[in-house]
């Protein structure tokens, strides 16, 4: 069985994101870029499935600019077997990303697709569900546990009410939450080895997807700032301040 993992190149989660002067985009030049943290967990989960003898190959794929090769190389260094870049400089929103991933699903016929539950740039939380719909296969989203045996997969989902368990037959799409695992550290020799692993680049415009309608971006702004508060120096003063605000 092959496992396909979708990863996205995003601004690192530690960066304080700035909006450009024109309010037309966020500043991306000179800013640290990383694999979306959820996707790193998806890669780790795929590697563990392969290491448990339940899959033979882990393929990582991204839709993005040429520079996203860096993130694919990192995933290869973690242990993925090969990588595919669907290269484009266009903005690719979730429905288009899902259609592109569907093309790869048709080509590679994976038994399992692992994605992050959301990309921390657009915070859309859509691609996995959309891919599952197009593929007409089950989905298990926001998972923090998985157990695979006999072509069935039991997944634990983090939902607002607690932890939900579902069983899906394969192939299926999973989207992973942060508590599923802790991704491994990449070691120096692995980075060297990853340079020799196959990384295929395909022009996004050549894969023949029906480009879906996309949302128009009319601008970016900073969220309203909370005005500065007060410091108190004792519990007594805290209670007084709370009374002042009328919240007790």
């Amino acid at each position, binding site marked *: 069985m092959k496992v396909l993992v979708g990863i996205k190149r995003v601004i690192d989660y530690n960066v304080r994101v700035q909006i450009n002067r024109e309010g037309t985009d966020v500043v991306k030049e000179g800013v640290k870029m990383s694999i979306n943290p959820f996707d790193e967990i998806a890669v780790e989960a795929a590697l563990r499935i392969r290491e448990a003898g339940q899959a033979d190959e882990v393929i990582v794929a991204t839709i993005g600019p040429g520079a996203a090769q860096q993130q694919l190389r990192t995933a290869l260094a973690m242990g993925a077997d090969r990588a595919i870049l669907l290269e484009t400089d266009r903005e690719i929103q979730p429905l288009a990303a899902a259609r592109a991933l569907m093309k790869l699903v048709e080509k590679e016929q994976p038994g399992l697709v692992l994605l992050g539950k959301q990309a921390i740039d657009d915070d859309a939380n859509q691609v996995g*569900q959309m891919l599952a719909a197009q593929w007409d296969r089950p989905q298990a989203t926001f998972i923090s546990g998985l157990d695979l045996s006999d072509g069935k997969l039991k997944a634990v989902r983090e939902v607002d009410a607690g932890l939900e368990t579902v069983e899906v037959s394969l192939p299926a799409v999973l989207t992973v939450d942060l508590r599923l695992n802790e991704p491994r550290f990449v070691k120096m020799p692995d980075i060297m080895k990853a340079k020799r692993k196959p990384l295929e680049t395909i022009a996004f415009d050549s894969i023949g997807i029906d480009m879906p309608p996309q949302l128009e971006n009319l601008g970016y702004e900073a969220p309203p700032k909370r005005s500065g508060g007060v410091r108190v120096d004792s519990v007594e003063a805290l209670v007084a301040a709370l009374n002042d605000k009328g919240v007790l």
Partner: protein
Amino acid sequence: MATVLLLAEHDGETLNVSTARAMRCAMALGEVDVVVLGAGTDGVAEQASRLEGARRVLHVDRPENAHPVAAVMAPQLASLASEYDVLLAPSSTFGRDILPRVAALLGVPQISDIMEVIDERTFKRPIYAGNVITTVRVPGDCKIIGTARIASFAAVAGAQAPAAVESIQVEADLPTDTVWIGLEASGGDRPDLQSANRVVAGGRGIGSKENFDLIFRLADRLGAAVGASRAAVDAGYVPNDMQIGQTGKIIAPDLYIAFGISGAIQHMTGIKDAGVIVAINKDGEAPIFEAADIGLVGDLFQILPELEKALGD
């Protein structure tokens, strides 16, 4: 006037308050019908009929709808949505799981986490963990599909007279390859985090599961719900459904008190709609103080019992 179909969230017995909040967003977009998918859910349909703004309630009651399985619900919603200009759901894990699946079946983009309606096709939504707000417009004559960020909309009131409930059947092939096994709810009888007026939360600084009792005791005194940072959940102090933030719950209580939470952006995005934010942290430089209305620098193990006592009389 545009027609809106609002997907109701419920647990089989009770309509979730997220529905009444999403209704506020739906009413800004047009005339609203509420759809209840469930099994043996006459009671839920009846509650939905009492929401202000509900024109009718469509009730699709069948055994397959006993649990919220996206692969089962999405084709039904895609079929029903064909009659509407807008399909909306609360941006809870329930809505986030199902709605993109419907959007893909219909081949239209989805607006996640609508926080403000600018006009019938234009919306504001948060990105980058709430550090940036973007304004997006749905192009052309695309159907509008979106989830409403629960904390951004106040719940609507009850209706004067209940709306009509129509039991309907939907033609759709429903898959059977997803089996719902169970839900482990930590629940209890404490106030619900997403609707409580007051929330007391603890972070890594609490140090252990046992120490979290201090937080629970103060919460009980205040009639507050209990929340936590991701670090506290990861460390096993409290269950996942208490996590507040980018990947947890987004809340908007009148009062939020944080003990031993540093104030990472991923946490702050979950609380910035709170009325009054109080931070207690021993590190005066902790970023949470930048957003706190009231800050107290000190050891939480000293302050928590003192505060509990001070509020006792």
